[in-house]
């Protein structure tokens, strides 16, 4: 009987001595907030190895460089700037610090490169009588009879119905130009939804993985991503997707999906990248940090974090810019026309 009591006591002891599961042990001081931020990134950021290969990032060195600066901060605004500068060392547009002082951004992924887009020049093509649905501006380019759709953002949800209506209204055209220049992203599901209306079958487009531990190399095994046919209208005629360096995040993902389709050509400048699905966390002082956590890889298992090269590289020339012409749109029109010319020649032969 005594033995039973002893077992019961031991069990209760184990149960209660498990203790409480506690929060991270960083103080709400400049050094504490710095350590908290550095540790969050150290444990949860997903592109250390890739950034090391690409531009020689040394994260430990970053700690040694910025920790003394954080300790010297006299006020929280100075601390915000110091922490923001440390995050910029990652050269990742998905890494931001958010506080009442604003949001820290790394912009060089697009500012270091040509703009390759002008909404004033775009007006010469889109005209005044364009359609507008689901955030997409669209019209037919005459006399070539080629559809033009400008997708400015993926921030809003897209519906099969709206996309189908847009495609139906453009169906008089022999080809379609999808312009996603300056599209900084939004929701992956919106990018997928739009892309799903350009395939009739299930297509393997890439892989996704995530951090499954705190080490720099702790990743889940890559899981395949497929693009499946959307409900409603499907466009299988020639498509040219226009890109520039400001195509980022979900828009970069859209390019990754579309380039696997046989009737689609990517034309323009390299995209800005941003292939890591970002997650958020907080610092002891309540500031929010966003960081890339889940890498999305292309069909070959390669990162697209620093952009996707186009199939046909084209920049807007100074001559075209000065005379209000968009070299990318003009080249896309020529490309679709030449496709049909070639097809006609083959039929004649």
């Amino acid at each position, binding site marked *: 009987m005594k033995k039973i009591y002893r077992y019961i006591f031991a069990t209760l002891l184990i149960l209660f001595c*498990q203790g409480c599961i506690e929060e*991270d042990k960083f103080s709400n001081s400049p050094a504490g907030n710095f350590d*908290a931020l550095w540790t969050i990134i150290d444990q949860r950021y997903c592109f250390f190895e890739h950034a090391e290969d690409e531009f020689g990032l040394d994260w430990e060195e970053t700690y040694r460089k910025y920790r003394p600066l954080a300790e010297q901060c006299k006020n929280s605004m100075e601390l915000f700037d110091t922490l923001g500068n440390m995050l910029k060392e990652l050269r990742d547009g998905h890494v931001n610090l958010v506080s009442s002082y604003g949001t820290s951004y790394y912009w060089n992924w697009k500012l270091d490169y040509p703009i390759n887009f002008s909404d004033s020049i775009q007006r010469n093509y889109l005209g005044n009588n364009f359609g507008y649905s689901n955030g997409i501006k669209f019209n037919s380019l005459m006399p070539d009879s080629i559809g033009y759709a400008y997708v400015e953002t993926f921030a809003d949800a897209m519906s099969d119905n709206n996309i189908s209506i847009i495609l139906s209204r453009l169906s008089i055209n022999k080809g379609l130009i999808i312009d996603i220049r300056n599209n900084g992203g939004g929701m992956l599901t919106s990018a997928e939804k739009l892309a799903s209306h350009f395939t009739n079958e299930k297509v393997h487009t890439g892989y996704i993985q995530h951090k499954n531990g705190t080490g720099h190399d702790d990743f*889940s095994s890559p899981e395949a991503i497929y693009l499946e046919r959307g409900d409603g209208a499907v466009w299988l005629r020639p498509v040219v997707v226009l890109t520039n360096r400001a195509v980022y995040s979900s828009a970069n993902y859209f390019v990754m999906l579309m380039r696997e389709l046989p009737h689609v050509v990517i034309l323009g400048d390299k995209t800005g990248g941003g292939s890591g699905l970002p997650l*958020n966390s907080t610092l002891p002082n*309540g500031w929010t940090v966003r960081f890339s956590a889940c890498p999305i890889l292309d069909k070959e298992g390669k990162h697209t974090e620093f952009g996707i090269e186009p199939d046909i590289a084209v920049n807007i020339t100074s001559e075209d810019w000065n005379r209000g012409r968009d070299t990318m749109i003009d080249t896309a029109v020529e490309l679709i026309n030449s496709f049909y010319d070639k097809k006609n020649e083959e039929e004649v032969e």
Partner: protein
Amino acid sequence: MRKTARYILLLLVLLLTSTTLKAQDIVIDSIIPRRVLVRTSSHGIALLNNLDTYLSGYNYTGLGYHYNLENFRDAHFGSYKWKYQTLFNVTGGITELNSSTQYSLMANRFWSGYHPFEIGERLQLLAGVQIQLSGGALYIPANGNNLISAKLRLALAASGMAIYHIPIRGRDHVARYQLDIPLAGAMFSPEFGQSYYEIFGLGHCANTWHFAHPFNSPSWRHTVSFDIPIGSNRRNVTLRLSYIADLYQSEVNDLRTHLYSHAFTFGFVKTLYKVKQGDPIKAYTPY
């Protein structure tokens, strides 16, 4: 001022016990009921302390609303007599860490069976098993792809209760303490850096369900309550004051969670009788 407070209290009592009074109206002293069900519905304020490192590494603290519904009755399994309890409670609140806000909603549904031990005239001890279903979510609007952390756990728990009757001025007051400790079960948790888009959008669910035990999910729930009969003998109304400490914890996939809720509630005890016409009737309570 005291008179006004008394009227407000009386109004609250009338509002919250309107169904109680109807149920008790059918009691006639000479009937032996087929089933007696004691139902207590309580409302209160909860002090919350939430941590979920999937969303944030720090404690969010604040206030919440707590609702608790308990059913308690005798049950039979052949000649074996036992006590059966069902619990439903929900806690919702707003918690903060400096300028960052978090919303939380957690619900529990417990089914318990107890073997009673009579110790003397006033004390009763109950030991039994409990099935616990707990679920809910934490939500930080400022977060992007990880703005919600869902909680779901099904567990087999050990449960014990001590009930003590205290006669004060000829009326039976009841003090009760209950402890519930989950021992084994299954619980949901995303992986360390996994997004819900991957789990629910792409269906990548590997390693999201875990065997839950006291070493990775050390949780417990304490309830202390005191039943105070108020009103006349004929129209007896029982007020229940409770303190409920619900301490939910887990540590899986390198993610740490604690959801501490300390609720102070008040409610009214209803006794419902199931009788058949012609049965002899007698007032009775299962504890």
